[in-house]
């Protein structure tokens, strides 16, 4: 009785794709010190949150999302987002470094919350696997550093990209060993060959390598949210005894 969840569609996935890349970029922006990078990161995060806002059933009540930071990673993610925008927008206005660091820290928290959000979804085996958390964090950073390459090819940025992509590759391997999912086969292969191998082969030559890391990360997350999201169904540890043993 496997059931593919359809509540979180591409709009919800957009939160993870845009938001993951955007927050990853913001984390990396401490290396960039570049306002346009911050603006891009904030825009991406806003796009993701805006997309997911389009998906919720009661849009005018969106503010209720903050009510449960005690246990809900979605509440925490929303609070982190507030902090990201407070610091990030302030940075764009005032250009104080401490605001940039604040935004980067809040973005890291945002990314962490996203990963924990999926993990807390106990109904979907492909999400609740513990290996999901490092995977989501790593791909957010890989995508973000990939975008960072568009702004700077400093050694620090290049190193950050390489590390993030490698970490993502390892996280993907660990995840795949734990979770068998037909829907992730193709995106996973792309992530390995285009998003990791090709990206690492080319990143010193062209910033487009960063986009390879970005696109494959997005495809994976889109598939994870909308195609790999089967509920585990129902199972019977004991069959009923029908009248006679």
């Amino acid at each position, binding site marked *: 009785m496997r059931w593919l969840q359809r509540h979180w569609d591409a709009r919800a996935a957009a939160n993870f794709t845009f938001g993951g890349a955007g927050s990853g970029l913001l984390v990396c922006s401490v290396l960039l010190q570049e306002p346009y990078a911050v603006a891009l990161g904030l825009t991406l995060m806003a796009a993701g949150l805006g997309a997911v806002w389009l998906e919720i059933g*009661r849009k005018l009540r969106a503010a209720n999302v903050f009510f449960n930071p005690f246990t809900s990673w979605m509440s925490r993610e929303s609070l982190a987002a507030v902090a990201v925008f407070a610091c990030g927008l302030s940075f764009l206005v005032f250009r104080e470094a401490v605001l940039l660091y604040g935004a980067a820290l809040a973005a890291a928290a945002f990314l962490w919350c996203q990963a924990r959000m999926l993990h807390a979804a106990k109904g979907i085996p492909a999400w609740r696997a513990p290996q999901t958390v490092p995977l989501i964090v790593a791909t957010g950073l890989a995508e973000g550093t990939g975008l960072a390459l568009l702004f700077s090819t400093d050694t620090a940025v290049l190193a950050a990209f390489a590390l993030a992509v490698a970490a993502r590759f390892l996280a993907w391997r660990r995840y795949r060993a734990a979770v068998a999912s037909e829907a992730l086969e193709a995106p996973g292969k792309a992530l390995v060959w285009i998003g990791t191998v090709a990206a690492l082969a080319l990143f010193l030559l062209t910033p487009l390598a960063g986009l390879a890391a970005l696109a494959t990360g997005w495809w994976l997350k889109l598939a994870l949210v909308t195609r790999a999201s089967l509920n585990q169904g129902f199972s019977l540890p004991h069959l009923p005894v029908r009248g006679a043993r």
Partner: protein
Amino acid sequence: MTRWAMIADLRRCVGCQTCTAACRQANATPPGVQWRRVVDLELGEYPEVKRAFVPVGCMHCEDPPCMHVCPSTATRKRADGIVTIDYDLCIGCAYCAVACPYQARFKVDRQEFAYGGSTEDERENLHPDRIGVATKCTFCVDRIDAGLARGLTPGVDPEATPACVNSCIAKALHFGDAENPASNVSQLLAENQFFRMHEELGTGPGFYYLWDRRP
């Protein structure tokens, strides 16, 4: 302390969907929203095949994953074990729906009717507060509370009992207080072997499946 729980006797259930239909009607849920339904499971390979009918729905867990993930505190748990949704708080993010291991939660974005346009009976029971928000089996909490207020016993007196339990033509569904050792539910659990669905997930369901007598 009271802990409301439901029992499905898998030896008795024939998958007729009477409870599915009764729940749909009693709670006036929209088409396709089955707070209670019976799943038709087939196991094995021909000719060694088994088939079982399994009533499912919200398990009113002790440790509900839906409640933990809910960002608005719309999903809560009462002291008597019933997991509730405050439709007015819910933002309809469906996080609870993906957090639930039992496919128990529904969200519809638009009011829909059985035949396109609405019919008189549907207009009599509209629930606009349930559009765009999460909904699920409530153990017919309104009936329970109203019944208790009148001194009735949920699970014994029909007016105080969930509609699905009332409707079951195989006497497969039971409802009562699992904390009261003298209750119908406690007695059935004492006399029979049972399991709970996806026990390993640690949710502590308030829904028990009987499968055999105790030796």
